[in-house]
Each structure stands twice: as C-alpha cells, then as structure tokens.
C-alpha cells in the first residue's frame, strides 16, 4: 500500500452516495453556460442573442493556447448573453439558452469512428475541439497537458481516481460503471504522449473500483486513504517517489496526471465526436431530499439539479460547489454546474466557528502536505507583510485546507493564503 507523502488529514468520509448509480437528469428548461469554465482565457462567443443552437454546437471558441471551447448542452434559442452568477469567479459572461424541448444534436457528432484511425496529433485536436478540461476540479485545458514541450521527456501517465475529497463519489461511480471507457480514454492519452507507464491511482476506500480495474488488466496503484492523496504533486510523490520542484509542473519530473472523468470525456469525444456537454455530479447533504450521483448538462442551474433530487428539505443555509475541503460556498442557487463542478453539497446548518488566537500548537505545520508553516504565513498576511509571506512559500500552498481543518482555534488559514496570493499577483502586475 502506498501513502508516501508527509502531512495530510483524515476527515470522516461520508461517502454514502458511493452506492448510488449515476442517474441521467433530463435536459433542463434553461442553461447558463459561462464562457469561462477553465483555467486560462475565457472563450470568445460565437453566437448572439436570438440564434438557434443544437446540442454539441460550439458556442464559444478557445482564445489562444490556454483556453477551452464551450458548447451548447441543450437545443433551443440563445435568449441572452450576459453576466450571470458563476460558481468560481463570482460572475461571468454566460450564454443563456432556452430549451426548445427537442433533443436535437448538431449533425457532425454522434458518428461512431475508431479512435485508432486517428493520429496522436489529430486526437489532440479532437480533444481541443471538444472543449475538454480537467474534470477533477482544476479545469485545466486537457489538450495543453497532452502537448508537453519536446524537451520534457514524459515516461509515466497517472490516471487519478483517488477522489480524496470527503462526500464526493462521482469519480467512484464513473469508475465502477464506465471502467472500460475510462481505460480506453486513458490509452488514447497514453498513445498521444507516447509513454510506456500507465498507472491508475485509486484510494483503498474504493476496493470495488480497485478490483474492477485490476480485472481489466491495467496497472493499479492502490493508495492509502488520506486527504489530499488526489492532489497532483502528492500523488506523484506517493506513487513514483518523485517530487515536482517548487513552482514546477508534473512534466518536470516526467509525469502527466489526468482525472478519470477526463479520460471518459476524451474517449466520448474521440469515438463519437461528441464534445463535453455533461458531467457526473455528486449531490449530497442533509439539506437535499435525495442524495444522488447525477449526470448533469453543463450550465444547468443548481436549483434545477436540486429539483431533480426532489428539492430542498427546507430553506438550506449552505450551498457548496465541490467537496467540503476545497469547494466554494455559493450565495445563490442560480449558479450553474460547470465543467469543473464535482459536487453540490446542501447543508442545513451554517455553524461557522469564531476565530480564536493562535496557540502555536503546530497542528497546521504537521498537517501541511506542502511542508509549509501555515501559522507563520498567516501571521505575515494578517500584518500585510506580503514579502515575508512570499518568502515563507505562500505561493506553494495548494489550498487543500488541511491546516484550517486541524486548527483548534478555527483560524480560516486558507482564506488568508488566498488573499496573500492575490496580493502578490496584484503587486507583480503593477
């Protein structure tokens, strides 16, 4: 069993939805598709108010290399292109499509073909055209990760099925129900990158998924359940014993990591020419009547997804998109599900503990998987001593939340680190 990284925490898993098979949610009446759902520049709108669109039609074109296209996820009419609440960046230009209740696809898609007939270069283009981004949450454009510079020798492709966030089981279900698709997708990545080593990384709290993949005859690394085992750098360290240098990328140590959901989406694109128009989302919490794993069209408002899960128990206090450790709390359920949305958590209580004084217990230092001294950095940020925060490595923080999870004084450390980082970036732009 591999665990192999320092720090980390063991929150209660609460993965009861691991038993819930993926249910397909019918197309909603309206979708709100932001042009920015990924790391990098927002896509450039290709449609205007009043246009008719069909499922799979490209409505936003990738702007430059680090960007991704977006596609219509329902057929109908573009009723507006305006700023709309966005689950990650607050508000963003979005395309609002009203359904025509006909499930019409654009012509080009759904023609089955053999991915083997395509060259690696062609496959990267297909993946780029399909608007595929990392579905683990960071939403980094996948085609960029598949085109490492020539001087970087890649020898290992890791497929990340850790799903170390508590509560979430979307990847788990996908691995159980679509193992073959994921493996075929991963092999496409393997061919594109021309690597020997293909390893599927799965935490040992998903024994059934481990067994499924072993049966398929692929190489599986079973990892000890520990948060954040699924964080890229920690995963590489645990499996390959390599450390991505500070400020570096996995490719600097000859490695590329892709999420299982991304593999699935890539195969669908390669085999059927179908772009990324939906994803699996775990809906859970004491505030929703039925916890489920749902296949949701991109752009579906959270409240429509909740309606599909039989609605709220009562007026909820908290809506979080993502997992409990790294997810983002939303003030409104108008926000849409986007490509990086892995979970929707609905909670009835909003207890937020009052921040106490740091007692220097060092629980944060022991918990930090990046070897940082969170309480020191937090002190610097609080005193606006941004240079010292930088010197102590605030930019190395992966915002996993282990420090704040363990803090007995309930100090929202990650909050301060996000602020500290933004200050550093703001100053460097000046």
């Amino acid at each position, binding site marked *: 069993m591999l665990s192999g990284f320092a720090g980390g925490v063991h929150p209660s898993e609460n993965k009861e939805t691991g038993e819930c098979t993926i249910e397909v949610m019918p197309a909603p009446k309206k979708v709100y598709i932001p042009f920015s759902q990924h790391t990098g520049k927002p896509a450039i709108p290709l449609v205007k108010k009043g246009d008719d669109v069909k499922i799979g039609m490209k409505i936003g074109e990738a702007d430059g290399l680090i960007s991704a296209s977006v596609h219509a996820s329902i057929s109908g009419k573009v009723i507006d292109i305006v700023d709309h609440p966005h689950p990650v960046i607050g508000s963003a230009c979005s395309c609002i499509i009203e359904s025509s209740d006909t499930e019409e696809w654009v012509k080009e898609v759904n023609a089955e073909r053999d991915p083997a007939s395509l060259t690696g270069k062609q496959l990267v283009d297909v993946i780029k055209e399909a608007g595929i981004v990392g579905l683990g949450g960071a939403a980094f454009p996948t085609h960029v990760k598949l085109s490492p510079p020539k001087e970087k020798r890649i020898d290992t492709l890791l497929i990340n099925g850790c799903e170390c966030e508590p509560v979430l089981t979307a990847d788990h279900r996908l691995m159980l129900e679509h193992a073959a698709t994921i493996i075929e997708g991963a092999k496409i990545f393997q061919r594109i990158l021309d690597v020997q080593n293909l390893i599927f990384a799965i935490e040992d709290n998903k024994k059934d998924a481990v067994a499924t993949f072993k049966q398929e005859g692929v190489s599986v690394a079973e990892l000890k359940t520990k948060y954040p085992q699924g964080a890229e750098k920690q995963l590489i360290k645990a499996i390959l014993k390599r450390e991505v240098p500070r400020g570096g990328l996995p490719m600097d140590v000859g490695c590329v990591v892709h999420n299982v959901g991304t593999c699935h989406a890539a195969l669908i694109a390669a085999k059927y020419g179908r772009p990324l128009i939906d994803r699996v989302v775990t809906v859970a919490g004491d505030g929703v009547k039925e916890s489920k794993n749902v296949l949701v069209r991109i752009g579906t408002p959270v409240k429509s997804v909740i309606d599909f899960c039989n609605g709220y128990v009562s007026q909820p206090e908290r809506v979080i998109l993502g997992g*409990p450790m790294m997810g983002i709390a939303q003030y409104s359920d108008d926000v849409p599900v986007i490509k990086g949305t892995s979970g929707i958590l609905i909670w009835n209580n909003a207890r937020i503990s009052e921040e106490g004084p740091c007692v220097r217990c060092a629980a944060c230092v022991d918990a930090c998987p990046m070897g940082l001294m969170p309480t020191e950095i937090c002190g610097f940020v609080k005193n606006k001593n941004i240079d010292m925060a930088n010197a102590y490595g605030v930019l190395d923080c992966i915002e996993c939340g282990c420090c704040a999870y363990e803090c007995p004084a309930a100090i929202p450390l*990650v909050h301060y680190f996000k602020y500290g980082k933004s200050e550093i970036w703001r100053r460097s732009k000046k």
Partner: protein
Amino acid sequence: MEKVEEVKKLFVVSASPHIRSKHKTSTAMRIVTIALLPALVYSAYLYGPRVLLLTLISILAAVGAEAMLQRMLGKKISVADGSAVLTGLLLAYNLPPGAPWWLPAVGSAFAIIFAKQLFGGLGYNFINPALAGRAFLMASWPSLMTKEWLAPVGGTLSGIDGITAATPLSLLKNPANYGDPQIIVRQLNDFETIRNLFFGNIGGCIGETSVLFLLLGGLALLVLKIIDYRIVVGYLGSFALLAWLLPTPGSVLFHLFSGGLVLGAFFMATDWVTSPITRKGRWVFGIGCGVITIIIRLWGGYPEGVSYSILLMNVFTPLIDRLTKERIFGEQKRKGAKK
C-alpha cells in the same frame, strides 16, 4: 396596498474548508488539566489536604487575575478557554507543600498578569507563565520556596530512612552536609530509593513527586497527540544520555525520577505557545532543555534545573523556529552550495 417583494434569502458563505476536526483549544486545555489530576490526588494523599487548598488558591488567583485584567483593559474575558486554570494548576505543582497560602496567589497573579496578559494573552506569551511565576517566587521568597518541604505520609523527605532534612536532589548536591557522603550517595542509588522516587514517596513540590502518576497522564497526552513526542523524547533522551556520560554520583534512573523532570518534560516543555512549531525545532528544543537541566543539576547553584532550562529554551523558541524552517515540498538542495 404596498407591493411586497419577496427577498430571496442568500446562503451563508465562508472560505474553504467547510468542515473542521473536533479539535478545540479549550478542549485540549481541559484534557491536559485532567491528565494532571491523578498526580494531585496522590499528592493530597501523601502530604495531606493542605495541598488541595494551595492548588485551589492558585487556580482561583490565576482565573481571577485574568478576568480582572481583561476587564480593566476592556478586552473580552477569555477564562473559559481553560488556559488560566492550567497555569494556576501548574504553578501550584511547583510549590512546596508547606508553602504559606498567599504564595500561590501572588505567584499565579504574577504569572497571568506579567508573563501572559501583558504580552497579549493566550498565544502571545513568550515564556511559560507558570514557570515565570515560579521563577518570580524563587527570586522573591527563596526560603519559602526551598524550605517548606513536607515528608510524605509513611516516608521521609529524602526517600531514605533516617534522613529527614533534605530532598533527594539536595542530598545529591551536598551530601557532606547530611552525613557520610559515600554512604548517602550509595543509599540514593539504592533500589529502595529509586522505587520511592518513582512512586513519589519523597519530599518535593506538590505535583512533581509521583513519576508514576505523571507518566500516566503524560503518556495519555502523547497518545492523544496533544503533546509532541519530539520534545518529550528529545528532553528525556538527551538528559538520560548526559546523566550517564557525565560525572555525577547519581545514577541515570535517580536523575530521571527525581525533581521536576517528568512534570517538566511532559507538561511544561510541551506547552504549545512557548515551544517551536517546526518538527526539527521541537527536537532542538527538547534536547536543549535536557542539556541545560543536567548542566544546572551538576554544576549550577540550584539542586534542580528543570524550570530554568525550559524558561531559557522558551526564549530561544522564535530563533529556533526561524533557523529550522520546514523543507517546502519540491524544494531543491541549493546547487553548488558545497563548492
């Protein structure tokens, strides 16, 4: 009729993570307090109910001083976090059982006001308040702090039959004052004496004598991960090693079990606020405490060195933290640094 617009209720937002472990500062303080209690109960059995009264006075003075000062300064009263209770308890543990009743009151008030609150309260004190209080009392009323020993019920002050005038460490320091040095040193290292030291059947401070009961509490704290093993192991390990290597008439076990070493190593050196936060730093801190303790015991003016060693290392804590920074993930060793 006025048109009532329905105001949509917004959800509560806060920064991630949205879940927290059950760890709380106040819970930890309470657990440490509880871990200290077996030693107090046994102490009350050994020296009589008087020690309970002294301890109670010490705690009340600590809590009272904290509440009063915070009120005067217009700050939020934070006695509920349990840290003042712990300071009062630890200060009492450092007093001789025969101390006058006002001594703990003065010591606790000093500890809370001058060592803790005036530096900003919990988390901002740079030295252990209880030890600062003890040092203050030692400097102000040395005779009351070193002479008011009581012999335990059914035992003697020294742990040796017939010698009633000194505690074991005083005996070791100046054996010639109490009889034939050779005989005394041999008796100190006897199995009988070591056993008396281990169970606390000797004279000493209120809370320090029973190694057994302190160990029980201390090990519980280690298991619960409230205190860090590096400090404890570093302290006791370096101390034991030096007690074995350096010229001293006392055996290693005698040194380990006598005085306030176990109390200090488990309950005071490990104080969160005043010990380093880095992993390496905690080793350095523990080892530093061990080295200074043995130096004071063997060559210093006092028979015991635990409290001063911890206070000295407390002062070094910020420096240790700065010099032993954690290695950041992916940090490369500086290339060519050795050239």
